[in-house]
């Protein structure tokens, strides 16, 4: 059995950690690291019967993830202190939001940049406030800067000059030029307050964003992690609210993300064993390609299906912008090489 399959089976609980041969751990740990999910696996297998050196490595990973999470929430607090005095409200997105809301998928989850969502009407003031508070522009390339401001769903990334941490300030969750236009106003106005005090998307919207980020925006890099987030959040949201799946469907329709959300649900069923309600279980032949893309890694953590990877890369650009614009963009990028 391939290491990535073993890794997925361990997360899904289909396989016992104690049943692995010592040599199998090499590939599992390598794949988990390649997917930036080793701390996640360490949490999932906390208390399992592990070889002593694996148990020690996993303990390191859990401790390091706890520190990283605290640092990420501190970064959110720094953003709050920069924006709150000007009355700019923001919603935490992705990893920092999961941590602030103390969700199951936050356990061990890597948090990269701080992602926040503000109202489009506040975006200039938010940028100024952050620049005044010590953040700086990262991109020096005028085309990239122009591209972000004209076409993207976020400001060009900013980095804090003393803490060296990046912030992505979004005004919506998909690029402006994307074929799908979620209702950004609804996302912000229906946000909820997390246990940690920060605003986060409501459960249905958070799930929509997770699916959009995984299936509608990118090229499925980090897809196993995003799908794991989706799997755990839908499980827990549904347990807390019996009407969750209905509400999810309503919001997914509102944002134009029904296909993405349904595909994510089917994939979390197929890979992680999620149990879906009636009406969500339809078969879909094209899921096969998405599943294969997610598990295209060998026992050394290398991507095994370069053509499939390339196809998904092209797909992400195809969804992101109309064909003539795509041609212009690629031409400009090619000339700058």
């Amino acid at each position, binding site marked *: 059995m391939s290491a990535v399959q073993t890794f997925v089976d361990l997360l899904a609980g289909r396989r016992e950690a104690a049943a692995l041969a*010592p*040599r199998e*751990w*090499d590939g599992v*740990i*390598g794949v988990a*690291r*390649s997917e930036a999910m080793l701390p996640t696996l360490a949490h999932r297998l906390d208390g399992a019967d592990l*070889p002593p*050196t*694996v148990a*020690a*490595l996993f303990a*390191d*990973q859990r*401790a*390091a993830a706890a*520190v*990283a999470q*605290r*640092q990420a929430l501190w970064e959110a607090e720094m953003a709050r202190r920069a924006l709150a005095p000007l009355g700019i409200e923001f919603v935490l997105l992705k990893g920092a939001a999961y941590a602030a809301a103390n969700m199951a998928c936050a356990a061990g989850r890597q948090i990269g940049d701080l992602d926040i969502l503000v109202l489009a009407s506040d975006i200039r003031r938010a940028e100024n406030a952050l620049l005044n508070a010590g953040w700086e522009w990262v991109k020096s390339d005028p085309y990239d800067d122009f591209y972000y401001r004209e076409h993207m769903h976020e400001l060009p990334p900013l980095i804090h000059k003393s803490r060296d941490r990046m912030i992505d300030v979004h005004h919506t969750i998909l690029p402006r030029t994307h074929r799908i236009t979620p209702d950004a106003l609804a996302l912000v106005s229906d946000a909820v307050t997390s246990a940690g005090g920060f605003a986060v998307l409501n459960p249905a919207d958070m799930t929509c964003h997770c699916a959009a980020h995984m299936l509608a925006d990118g090229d499925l890099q980090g897809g196993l992690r995003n799908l794991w987030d989706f799997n755990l959040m839908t499980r827990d949201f549904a347990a807390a609210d019996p009407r969750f799946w209905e509400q999810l469907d309503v919001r997914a329709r509102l944002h134009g993300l029904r296909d993405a959300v349904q595909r994510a649900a089917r994939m979390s069923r197929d890979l992680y064993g999620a149990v879906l309600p009636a009406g969500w279980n339809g078969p879909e032949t094209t899921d096969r390609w998405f599943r294969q893309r997610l598990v295209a890694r060998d026992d*050394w*953590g*290398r991507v095994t299906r370069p053509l499939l990877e390339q196809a998904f890369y092209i797909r992400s650009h195809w969804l992101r912008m109309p064909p003539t614009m795509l041609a212009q963009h690629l031409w400009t990028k090619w000339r700058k090489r």
Partner: protein
Amino acid sequence: MRHNIRIAVGPVQFRIGSDWAEPISALEQLYAGYPQDDARPADATVRLFAARPWRRWVRPSVHIGGDFVVPDALPLPLSMGLLAAEMGMNLQVALGWRRHMLLHASAVARDDRALIMSGESGSGKSTLAALLGEGDWRLMGDEFTLIDPASGDALAFPRAVSLKNEAIAAVAAQVDAARLGPLMAGTPKGDIRHLIPRADAIADMHEPARPTLLLFPRFGGAAAIEPMGEGEAFVRLTEASTNYVALGEAGFAALTRLVRETPAFGVSYPDSATGIALVEQLWAEVAK
């Protein structure tokens, strides 16, 4: 991968895969005397690979990959495959290891007390450690020294010592030729030749040692010793640590304790013999 090897250095178990046989057989020679536990899963993976299949044979160039990758890192020619392996191992430790605070520093021990030497490349920290390790010191490592946040102890990472340029001749004059790896001339880091640590240094590699003296050597200039305050030592070591920030409060506590409990000195020396004499002089003062 087609060719591979497992190597344990200090607390870290590596597996190293390669598209070519040469780097692996070179590693097999350097690490033949290290403990082998085939049942132990790898903590870290290093990959030496050709970016395109035909580049295995046509102008073969070795890309360094693994769990952690530096984007845009330049590949090395196959003749420097051993250097690529060394860089790959360093990279995985520097970016991935979290159990201990990592200092980019060499260390030697005597009576389970450690002398830690930190400095930029060219400061002579590796050469001094290698030469001391040939005397009555135990070589703990020429590249990384690990500090255990719980106990404050130093732990060894005695990989094969990477001797550079003039240091090669200085050390080669003192050791059995069988303990030296192949000469790699004209690498991006200069001429490089590896030294296999003494068998006792490898056998004792899991023995912790109490940090007792912190030195910041500087090769070149007249012999001089300058006591260093806790603040300066602290700041220098934060810069020398690859995971200080990632460890958060535990890293701060470990480093604060290290500089408070360990006397620190800046040392300038014109040649290795003088450097060693200054080290012994300081050691005699602080290790009483």
